């Protein structure tokens, strides 16, 4: 570490180039990661709030919750620790001709775990809890909100953060009310789907049970989008590490005669190799931490306009991946160091 650090501070120009490159690439990677995670969670976070372990749809729904019709009779046959019916319906909230917003109406069975993470205020028949993004559309607590195709306006009783489904804001309402919107009357004994919590023992043959992850992966666009971002981010990490590896390799080759002299003086190959590795690690980690700082700064300025979300563990994993892959790249330099023959130094 001593040699590695001294060389960096005595050759600031050369090494700052390496760090700047690392900063830029890691900035891009952290930023993409935040966007990817933010976008992915805006598909799902209205539902992940539940803390459910699984979702049940009808088999005939072809993985589509909008097409799933679970009767109360089938619901009764589901055997799980906790179960709760819900309904999902895309709708348009219309304030005026110029102010229309896409929303999802999410009807949740009252008295179930579905409500646990939401406000505990009791809702009247036509009351809803809305995603906080609707505040930007001009709604506030107490506003009425009209749904196209349904004559009675709803009243927003509260807002919650991050209540979106497939990037669209949710309106939470009682399942009975949802049935009235969906079927015309509240007494129709059909809901769209069932959320399960805890152990899932059995579901009837007409129904299909999904883990939460399976369910999200069949959401239109979700899987493809996650795969695309994952691929981009992984490639960027590998490319950045490769470039750092090449830089270090070139710097190592330039020092061949110096390393030869040092070996002649009895400094072990192991010490020199460790020095090359720790230098790589120092450059990569400092570069990526600066890149992360830049990301945090950018988000502070433009946050809110983009679906950006942090996930501590993803960021830790990216930083670790940068470190590990660049160390793998540095192994070429280590090999070069080990092959240097001190006899040639004389």
């Amino acid at each position, binding site marked *: 570490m*001593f*040699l590695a650090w*001294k*060389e960096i501070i*005595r*050759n600031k120009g050369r090494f700052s180039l390496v760090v700047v490159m690392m900063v830029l690439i890691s900035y891009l990677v952290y930023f993409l990661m935040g966007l990817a995670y933010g976008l992915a969670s805006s598909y799902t976070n209205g539902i992940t709030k539940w803390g459910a372990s699984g979702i049940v749809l009808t088999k005939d729904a072809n993985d589509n919750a909008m097409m799933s019709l679970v009767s109360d009779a089938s619901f009764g046959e589901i055997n799980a620790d906790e179960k709760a019916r819900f309904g999902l319906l895309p709708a348009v909230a219309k304030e005026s001709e110029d102010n229309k917003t896409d929303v999802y109406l999410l009807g949740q069975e009252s008295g179930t775990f579905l409500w646990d993470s939401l406000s505990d205020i009791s809702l009247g028949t036509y009351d809803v809890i809305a995603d906080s993004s609707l505040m930007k559309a001009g709604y506030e607590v107490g506003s009425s909100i009209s749904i196209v195709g349904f004559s009675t306006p709803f009243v927003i009783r509260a807002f919650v953060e991050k209540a979106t489904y497939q990037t669209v804001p949710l309106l939470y309402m009682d399942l009975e009310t949802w049935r009235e919107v969906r079927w015309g009357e509240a007494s129709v004994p059909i809901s769209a789907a069932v959320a399960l919590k805890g152990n899932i023992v059995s579901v009837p043959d007409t129904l299909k049970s999904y883990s939460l992850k399976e369910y999200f992966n069949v959401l239109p666009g979700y899987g493809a989008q996650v795969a695309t971002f994952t691929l981009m981010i992984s490639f960027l990490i590998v490319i950045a590490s490769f470039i750092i590896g090449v830089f270090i390799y070139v710097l190592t080759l330039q020092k061949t*005669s*110096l390393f030869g*002299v*040092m*070996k*002649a*003086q*009895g*400094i*072990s*190959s192991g*010490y020199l190799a460790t020095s090359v590795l720790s230098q790589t690690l120092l450059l990569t980690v400092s570069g990526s931490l600066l890149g992360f700082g830049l990301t945090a700064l950018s988000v502070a300025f433009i946050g809110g306009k983009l679906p950006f979300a942090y996930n501590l563990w993803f960021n830790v994993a990216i930083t670790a991946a940068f470190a590990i892959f660049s160390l793998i790249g540095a192994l070429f330099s280590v090999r070069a160091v080990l092959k240097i023959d*001190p*006899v040639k*130094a*004389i």
Partner: protein
Amino acid sequence: MNTLLEAKRITKDFLQKEEIVHALQETSFSGFPGQFIAIIGPSGSGKSTFLTIIGGLQKPTTGEIVLEGKPYSRLDGKSRSKIRFEKIGFILQSASLIPFLTVREQLDLYDRIKKRAPDEKRIEELSERLGVKKLLNKTAQPTLWRRTPKGGPSSKALYPNPSVILADEPTAALDGARSREVMDLLKSETAREGKLTIMVTHDERFLGFCDRVCKIEDGVLTDLKIAP
């Protein structure tokens, strides 16, 4: 006097384009503490081969090198490297200093690798004697050492207090006055600390400084002069 370094009937052969080259014919050689030995000879005569073998950088084809009574030329690379680190100080023709470290840090590096505290007393004393006291905190850029060549590389080689100093063309690229300074220093340090200094050189101006002069020609070592 006890022999410090002994070469026992060493030879070195190389394979070059499917032909065996006898770089060093069978040679025996002994060096004693306090002795300053010059090895001269034309280019390609085997001088450097001899120096690298007694310095443990390569193994002899046959024979054995014994340092302080212990054979070491047959040890593995790692063990020889350790012996070089502790027992042998190299002063090399190519820059033997690390260009991005200060003179003081070159010495610190030794202590860091040995995991011991710096020997402040020796640093003080050596830097005073070698005239590098003011340069301790300067980085070892080549331009600096062209101006004050004697102190830097020598202080680095001498600091660990090795028993043998091996110098390869220490006066190459230096003018007369500075070459003389380097020679003076090698001679006085050899005597003061009882080291064995073996110097390979082309420069025959300073052979009078040496206790013993050997010549290698076509891989054969002969004594030209041995001081009484």
